[in-house]
């Protein structure tokens, strides 16, 4: 990351619900073309933060600039340049994947070929299938395809790998890296630290609505090690997931 230009900047973000403060004074920047991870336990405020940046939720206070656009005044413009994958979102019932892509193309005013979008996420064989009939990994890949329809500058992925088997997870990582390499900035939330370590250029740890650490995974690990931390058990050269992948193969199962 030689040129670090912030494409998203969040300053002193606060979100209060009636008697509950979900986000209390978050500040961070996401650089262009990086994969930025928001990590933290459930209820830490990750999804709330994402949804405020995505213009889906109003903030209580603070300032957010997305690619030079303010969420307060230019929400419509921001929607044009971002792609959003929501946690657990469904799709219009009774439509097949091509028809859903056509719908989103209409909603974004984008001129795209549905089959090309499906090819990007390797779902061309499922073109006539309904979303409900897809496997978990396929659903996530399809969701990601819908985020790419407007050729966004930034995509937001909220726990895209939750519930996937190891193959599907690795497959999704490859897809996310591909998207980043094509020039799109990726903001992702996850509960899997191995995933964050492999995938993210920088991560922010969110706890009780505040950022408690923000750096590259390497630096964060080095910092911990230099503070004298040691794993209780000698680290082996492989872990159980490596064994699983080794035994069951790399290829996609869907």
């Amino acid at each position: 990351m030689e040129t670090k230009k912030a494409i998203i900047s969040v300053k002193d973000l606060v979100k209060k619900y009636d008697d509950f403060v979900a986000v209390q004074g978050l500040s961070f920047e996401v650089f262009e073309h990086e994969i930025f991870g928001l990590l933290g336990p459930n209820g830490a405020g990750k999804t709330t933060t994402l949804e405020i940046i995505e213009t889906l939720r109003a903030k209580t206070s603070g300032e957010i600039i997305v690619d030079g656009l303010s969420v307060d005044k230019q929400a419509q413009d921001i929607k044009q340049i971002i792609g959003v994958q929501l946690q657990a979102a469904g799709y219009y019932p009774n439509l097949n994947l091509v028809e859903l892509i056509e719908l989103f193309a209409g909603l974004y005013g984008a001129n795209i070929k549905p089959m090309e979008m499906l090819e990007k996420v390797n779902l061309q064989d499922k073109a006539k299938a309904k979303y409900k009939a897809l496997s978990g990994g396929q659903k996530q890949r399809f969701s990601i395809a819908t985020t790419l329809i407007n050729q966004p500058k930034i995509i937001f992925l909220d726990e895209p790998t939750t519930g996937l088997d190891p193959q599907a997870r690795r497959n999704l990582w490859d897809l996310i890296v591909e998207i980043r390499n094509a020039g799109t900035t990726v903001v992702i939330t996850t509960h899997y630290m191995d995933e964050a370590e492999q995938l993210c250029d920088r991560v922010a740890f969110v706890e009780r609505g505040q950022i408690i650490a923000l750096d590259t995974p390497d630096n964060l690990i080095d910092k911990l090690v230099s503070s004298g931390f040691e794993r209780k058990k000698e680290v082996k050269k492989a872990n159980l997931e490596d064994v699983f992948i080794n035994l069951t193969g790399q290829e996609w199962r869907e």
Partner: protein
Amino acid sequence: MQKDIQDQHSNPSLATGGYSHTKATLALAKASFRSIMRSPSAVVFTLAFPLIFILVFGFLGGGGTRIDVGVTPGSDVNNPVIGTLEKTGMIRLVKDKSKAEFDKLLEKGNVDAMIDVHRKVNTSAYSVNVVYTSASRDKGGILKSVLNNIFYDKTLKPTVAEIKESTITGREYKTIDFILPGQLGFSLLSTGVFGTAFVFLSLRQTLVIKRFFATPVRRSSIVIGEGIARIGFALIGALFIILIGHFFFGFTLVHGTLTVVNMLILATLGVIVFMGFGFIISGLAKNESMVPPISNIVTLPQFLLSGTFFSIEAFPSWLQPISRALPLTYLNDAMRKVAFEGSGLWDVKFQIMILLLWGIGIYAVAVKVFKWE
């Protein structure tokens, strides 16, 4: 900030000025229409149910209403009144039975009325004595109106018997002419209420709408797109019902295509009003299982009390004001007037006005209770 550097991603078609809300609305309408056409419940409620009722009543009625009228023993039978009644084709005269037999049949409703005609002394006019039975109130009502047509002038001007004949032999009022507009109204009501309520609740619950909000689409586009699809579907259903009724069961369309167009315009108005109920229900219901009970509270009373199956004239007088308060009553009424009496839309302006008032009221509530998230 660094907008100029990001030309590798610049996409002119996505510039704010190039975004078309019309395209977004139409994309939604298309998606929604496809979805409705594939939804079994929509097809069943809109087409299958009404068609089944039409089939049943169509065959039951044998293509038309039959009113059995007993001719009182001793009555004059060779007179223009009886002759005209026979010519209508809907009245079957029962003769050659004793007074006692007739009384029993009348009590059970096996004959719908008794008629007794006598020439008045020293004039060419006839005196007609009709006895109705409470066992067959609705058919009695039809007979009454048929007779009224004949009497009206006959008692005043004894020589006009022939003129009156021509007025009542003009059009045959068949069961289908009553049943079909009612079924059509019911179909529009269910499509509007159930369809809209289910779709918006499920789109809200499965976060489909939230995902839409992450695109530049306007809320109004979502509502209008959905509305276009539902109205389109309802009109196709209505056309289908009207055509089947017309070609297979002889449903009367006085002015042909014009009548159909007028009916479809009324159908559009009806479905828009009924969709308002759907919006309200989708806002009130906490989950999908709450939709049918709440929807039934709206649809069932109208189904039963709005003259879908029986003329509301047949209801007890305390019930009639309730019937006359329901929007479907006015839609059914207007439909029947347009289809059978050949009225234009201006002739049913009163009914249309009541529907519009309902529409304003319903949407005023819908705006308050509708939930996007």
